[in-house]
């Protein structure tokens, strides 16, 4: 028998400002809290305020800047503010998607950190009534030679695969890069896309008073307590001791939860629903109460618990995984219980919605919390953090590129460098084909993955993009570029880009220099979203990505989703045919600033790398639209956007994917490796080319030759297989600890 009075006494103890500081609440916030409440809080109440007002839940440093994003276009059904964004994909169907980070947990415990990141983002999507149909991930690790990198890569990849494979949702695309700037703070961003009928979408809003609050899924344990607060502070060495704040995932339960929730959603039983993610039961219940403008009264003794003697504080702050909270319509409890019983999942009524506007919590018959709901959500701090403009970089010297190295040697180096090398070692550990609708995944080397909309001729295209090299150099142009590259990647397979989700990863916003990167990157992205009619419908902000005062490179990742009306009309990289011409679309100025060439070949660092290529957004739109029309019109055999490594690397990738030799002709190094934006390469036959409409920036730059023939440029050639080996061998050798040098 648990002694309840001993448990209750500390919970009810009145807290002071020092206690608040221990919960990450600063002086100003403490003053605000006590003023709103009219008294000092007890421990449970303080815990609830601290997580709701944490950076992770309240976006207090970024909120005013996020409002600069355009969030609407003709296809947007739901923009930011719900669990995920929703777009109209025609025929009464909707695509629902979001990207979210699990950076801090993944550094501390890579397998579970990454696994639960996947679990959390899946819940955001099926909470809204969507069946998840695809997963994407964007990973950034430290320098390959850093002693922790190899084990972090192995753990994160195993965690993503372990969860996604088991739950039965294909992991179809992603990106992985390495940079010393992530040595102490890796990035694990996961994106999920789901499919729903537009008349069967569920929201956190809509709950009314007098209805049962229904808890389903796993039991609540002591794991992950204060995870949201951990994600809102800098790291220091030795922080691995935070391991108990990392949650443990169970993809088997998640799979059952998906099936049970979707089965319940097919009946008319749910009024409002929210998954228990960061800040668990606290944020899920507060969100539903706040959005419904109601109160809640919960008896925590009814919460299914994994261990005995848990306090109200622990129950409310636990981040145990695979749990959902819903408000049921009257008279639906039995229906709901029967469905969860079928799947052997816990399901309990733990309270009722009320008209008091208060959050009342009871444990052992005592009221342990009684606070007004609106201040928790709406009165959360909203800071206008001071920021300074990031410094402008000087252009590269005009002759910096004049080196005595053969383009083929340079290509061997670039194709095998960590950021360009094939990530086969990673994506072969992900089930890319379950659900039977994967038209194109990582294995096609394409610019975007393609997933068929089950049972239709439509498909969704998806990609993940960010070039931190550019954002570090100039956050405004780099922010524009991340959105523009996403737009280009989707267009390169023949899809019409519709909307994005974003994952903004930065350092400590309390430092004006870091805040400057946050503000300017957001402004650049927002301008691109506006010009391209490519709005933000959901997203996540991850700040305090610092270790011992060193911020990560600014990394605003863009997850783009596009629509294909007829999947028979898509193209990839692998469709080039012998005799095809390689056509370069777009203007080439030979911009080498902040390029892969400058970093890998010229061995320049930081400011020496110079400014990134400027992004002309109107030209991006015009060029991408032109290419998409050619693809849909059947005038292209293969297409690829030109990005890292410029024309030369793009051409090698197409040759490798098509298993064809290529003669690239004669070009200067800046023309081969410059990273000018708004460019594509296309493989087309003579007769296709003859049917091209007028365009003022088309250039024939090469000819595809024989199957697995040589790759040639500037009068010299080499076996395509040598380039393939350079491209394929780096990652497996690295993971096996083979010294390639």
């Amino acid at each position, binding site marked *: 028998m648990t002694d309840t009075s001993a448990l209750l006494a500390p919970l009810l103890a009145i807290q002071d400002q020092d206690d608040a500081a221990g919960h990450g609440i600063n002086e100003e916030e403490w003053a605000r809290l006590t003023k709103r409440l009219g008294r000092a809080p007890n421990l449970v109440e303080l815990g609830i305020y601290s997580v709701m007002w944490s950076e992770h839940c309240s976006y207090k440093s970024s909120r005013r800047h996020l409002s600069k994003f355009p969030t609407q276009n003709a296809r947007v059904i739901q923009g930011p503010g719900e669990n995920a964004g929703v777009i109209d994909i025609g025929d009464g169907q909707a695509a629902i998607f979001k990207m979210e980070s699990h950076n801090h947990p993944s550094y501390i415990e890579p397998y579970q950190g990454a696994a639960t990141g996947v679990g959390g983002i899946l819940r955001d999507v099926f909470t809204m009534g969507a069946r998840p149909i695809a997963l994407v991930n964007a990973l950034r690790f430290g320098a390959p030679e850093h002693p922790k990198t190899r084990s972090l890569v192995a753990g994160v990849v195993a965690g993503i*695969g372990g969860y996604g494979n088991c739950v039965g949702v294909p992991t179809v695309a992603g990106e992985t890069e390495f940079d010393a700037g992530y040595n102490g703070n890796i990035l694990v961003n996961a994106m999920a896309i789901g499919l729903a009928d537009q008349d069967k979408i569920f929201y956190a809003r809509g709950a009314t008073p007098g209805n049962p609050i229904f808890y389903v899924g796993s039991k609540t344990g002591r794991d992950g307590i204060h995870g949201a607060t951990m994600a809102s502070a800098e790291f220091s060495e030795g922080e691995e001791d935070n391991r108990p704040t990392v949650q443990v995932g169970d993809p088997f339960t998640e799979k059952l939860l998906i099936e049970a929730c979707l089965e319940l959603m097919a009946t008319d039983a749910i009024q409002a629903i929210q998954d228990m993610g960061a800040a668990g039961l606290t944020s899920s219940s507060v969100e539903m109460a706040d959005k419904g403008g109601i109160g809640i009264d919960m008896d925590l003794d009814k919460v299914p618990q994994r261990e005995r003697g848990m306090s109200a504080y622990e129950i409310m702050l636990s981040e145990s995984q695979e749990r959902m909270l819903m408000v049921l319509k009257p008279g639906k409890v039995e229906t709901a219980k029967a469905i969860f019983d079928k799947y052997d999942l816990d399901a309990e009524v733990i309270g009722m919605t009320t008209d008091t506007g208060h959050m009342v919590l009871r444990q052992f018959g005592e009221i342990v919390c009684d606070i007004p709901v609106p201040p928790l959500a709406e009165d959360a701090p909203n800071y206008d953090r001071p920021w300074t403009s990031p410094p402008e970089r000087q252009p590269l010297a005009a002759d910096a590129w004049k080196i005595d190295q053969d383009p083929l040697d340079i290509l061997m180096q670039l194709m095998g460098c960590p950021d360009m090398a094939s990530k086969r070692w990673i994506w072969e550990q992900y089930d890319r084909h379950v659900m039977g609708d994967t038209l194109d995944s990582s294995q096609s080397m394409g610019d975007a993955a393609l997933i068929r909309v089950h049972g239709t001729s439509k498909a969704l295209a998806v990609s993940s993009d960010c070039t931190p090299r550019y954002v570090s150099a100039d956050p405004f142009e780099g922010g524009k570029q991340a959105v523009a590259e996403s737009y280009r990647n989707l267009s390169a397979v023949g899809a019409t880009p519709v909307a994005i989700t974003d994952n903004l990863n930065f350092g400590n916003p309390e430092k004006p220099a870091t805040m400057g990167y946050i503000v300017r990157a957001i402004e650049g992205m927002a301008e691109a979203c506006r010009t391209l009619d490519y709005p933000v419908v959901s997203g996540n902000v991850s700040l305090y990505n610092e270790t011992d005062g060193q911020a990560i490179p600014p990394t605003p990742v863009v997850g783009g989703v596009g629509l294909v009306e007829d999947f028979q009309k898509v193209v990839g990289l692998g469709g080039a045919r012998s005799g095809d011409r390689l056509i370069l679309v777009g203007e080439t100025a030979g911009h080498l600033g902040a390029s892969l060439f400058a970093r890998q070949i010229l061995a320049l660092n930081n400011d020496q790398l110079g400014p990134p290529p400027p992004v002309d957004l109107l030209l991006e739109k015009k060029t991408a639209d032109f290419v998409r029309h050619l693809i849909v019109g059947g005038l292209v055999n293969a297409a690829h956007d030109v990005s890292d490594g410029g024309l030369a690397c793009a051409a090698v990738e197409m040759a490798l994917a098509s298993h064809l030799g290529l003669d690239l002709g004669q070009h200067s190094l800046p023309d081969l490796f410059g990273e000018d934006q708004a460019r594509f390469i296309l493989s087309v036959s003579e007769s296709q080319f003859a049917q091209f409409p007028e365009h003022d920036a088309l250039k024939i730059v090469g000819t595809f030759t024989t199957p697995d023939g040589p790759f040639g440029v500037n009068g010299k050639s080499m076996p395509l297989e040598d380039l393939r080996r350079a491209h394929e061998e780096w990652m497996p050798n690295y993971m096996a600890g083979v010294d390639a040098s």
Partner: protein
Amino acid sequence: MRSAIIVFPGSNCDRDAQVALREITGHEPEMVWHKSGKLPDRLDLVMVPGGFSYGDYLRCGAIAANSPIISTLREHAQRGGYVLGICNGFQVLCETGLLPGALIRNASLHFACKPQPLRISARDSAFTRSYGDTDNILIPIAHHDGNYVADEATLDRLEGEGLVAFRYIGNPNGSARDIAGVLSDNGRILGMMPHPERAIGGHEGGDHGRALFDSLLSSL
């Protein structure tokens, strides 16, 4: 063709199997939740789909092999009905003893998902005869525990009696004698790690799995 697909908690290729049977045989398979305790009468084919039944906890397929529904699967098999177990389904069939051997962790210790070349070893089986004189096919694999093991005598017997249905070309998981799929003594139960139901055309998996289902249809 009257067919059913057993759905265990954690099965995740049940829909893939359903689509393949519907598209190729033209008949809608019955989806049977494991708790229902029994299969419909007079079935021609029972499929045990891929996935992670019971989360792969304890051992892949071990808990599913003790589900109440398995007794009616045995009855179906004893009547000479066809059974096709794919991936986790193969693991379940080995755990039930309906097929010999066991599947352990891949030799690489990694999950492996890729297009996998296979050699057709049992040419005239009920599951392969529509392949005609095709030697090699490409079928996707996606598993963590596909490393087939059995004692030497069993392996010799399987090979000697023509019960090895498919072999890997470029062994991806360490399987004994490159075995990718095995048949029961009566040739009516097939367990295989590769996913023919993910290779029925129109997607990244290709279409080399269609002939397997065509074979079954023509064997009835």
